[in-house]
């Protein structure tokens, strides 16, 4: 009896020491799960999820403080990927955080711009160039389409322009030719 207790106690101490040592020795800086979640998020930095950017949202998900369906730019596909990563059931996007929109970039009407720099301060990725009292312009290649520059503009000179598909951006579509389709067309 005593021997058994002794063995168990010794085991507990040994394992405890090993675990404690490895916790110190193999300490991981930052939160690796948040990193992985952040890699899935679209980096729009729009804040529609209720957090100040993609990274804080990723951390919130990793800490179990936020749900996976709060990112409209990521769309259903993003939710699916997050669900896969976290091993949970995918769920529909939470409408409260907005709905997915076609990809757009901001466009500044340079006739109306007064050069107030408010949009520059609002842009989360520094994709607007310009200075005080000078016309601002959007660097389209770097714009994430987050729309954060729209509300601060005092003269409403910013609009969102959907990205049109041109030749270099054209994509092959999924060839939907399979059987059920035949059934539908034949019955129709």
């Amino acid at each position, binding site marked *: 009896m005593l021997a058994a207790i002794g063995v168990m106690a010794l085991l507990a101490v040994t394992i405890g020491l090993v675990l404690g040592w490895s916790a110190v020795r193999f300490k991981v800086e930052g939160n690796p799960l948040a990193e992985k979640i952040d890699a899935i998020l679209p980096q729009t930095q729009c804040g529609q999820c209720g957090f100040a950017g993609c990274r804080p949202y990723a951390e919130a998900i990793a800490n179990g403080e936020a749900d996976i369906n709060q990112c409209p730019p990521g769309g259903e596909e993003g939710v699916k990927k997050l669900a896969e990563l976290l091993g949970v059931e995918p769920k529909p996007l939470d409408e409260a955080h907005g709905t997915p929109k076609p990809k757009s970039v901001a466009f500044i009407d340079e006739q109306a711009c007064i050069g107030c720099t408010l949009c520059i301060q609002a842009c989360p990725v520094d994709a607007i160039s310009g200075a005080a009292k000078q016309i601002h312009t959007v660097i389209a290649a770097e714009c994430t389409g987050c729309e954060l520059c729209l509300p601060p503009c005092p003269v409403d000179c910013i609009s969102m322009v959907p990205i049109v598909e041109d030749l270099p951006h054209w994509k092959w579509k999924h060839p939907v030719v399979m*059987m*059920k389709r*035949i*059934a539908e067309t*034949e019955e129709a």
Partner: protein
Amino acid sequence: MPSPFILDRSSVTQVMAWVLAALLPGIATYVWLFGPGILITLSLATVTALAAEAAMLKARGYPVRPFLTDLSAIVTAWLLALSLPSLAPWWLIVTGTLFAIVVAKHLYGGLGQNIFNPAMVGYAVLIVSFPVQMTQWAGPHELTAAPLTLAQSAAVIFGGDVPRATLDAVTMATPLDALRTGLLQQLTIDEVMTHPIFGHYGGVGFEWLAGAFLLGGLLLWALRIIGWQVPLAFLAGIWLTAGFLNFFDAGRFGPPWFHLFAPSVMLGAFFIATDPVSGATTPRGKLVFGLGAGFLTMAIRTWGGFPDGVAFAILLMNLCVPLIDQYTQPRIYGGAGKEPRT
């Protein structure tokens, strides 16, 4: 619609039609040696299969016509019918066919989606559920009284009033049954082989049937409907396993030629194991698949609870297909690993 804009003239219907055509020599031999009863079995299975296929397509919301005309249901029906005892009762045929089409094919997603060969699933269900009814084999006419006429066969199959004596006069144990029974009675192979059912290689009559299936199979190979890998590997698997056992103890294990010249083996090698849907797809995988099925067939015949093991062997190998395919992916053009061929 993008390119290509021309197609070869092949189609699923054409492939299936050739498979059916290649079965004809076997069916003709069957009728000649064992009487015309098989024609009733084939017809009943065909009608059941087509009806079940049509009903399932309708139920699943698929168009009926293009899928019925692909003839795949008829291939399943014929393969099952040819595996069943020729005087099996009608309900056995209908049950087996229904199970094959409804459960093994459509509940797995229909054409191209079934992981198990439907005909073999139907056969396995029957032999497990109705072992007694699965032994009503007509004997070859050389050894029995005059074979049953079409009408008599119909009477047997549809449960009509057939005198017991007439039936007993035409049914007999298959060679594999005879072998199994003999070995269970502690007889040696030489003693068992004195039974009149044993012929030159296989059973009397049965060896001719096996030859006819082999002929049909070679036709399919010549037409490139099937590859050489699966049949050759399957036959090799049986021959090697049987030969190995026979070499060490000829008294307890049958000769390899006997095991090879069974109709079930030839049918299995050329028509069932070559089913592309449930078989391996890579060249090496096909060899593994065939060898494995051949070995398992022999293992079941030798140590299992059933006289023949082709169906279970193929079903077990069907189970391994994803694994086999994954580990036998061939080298691609310009692929790493080996030196470029010269």
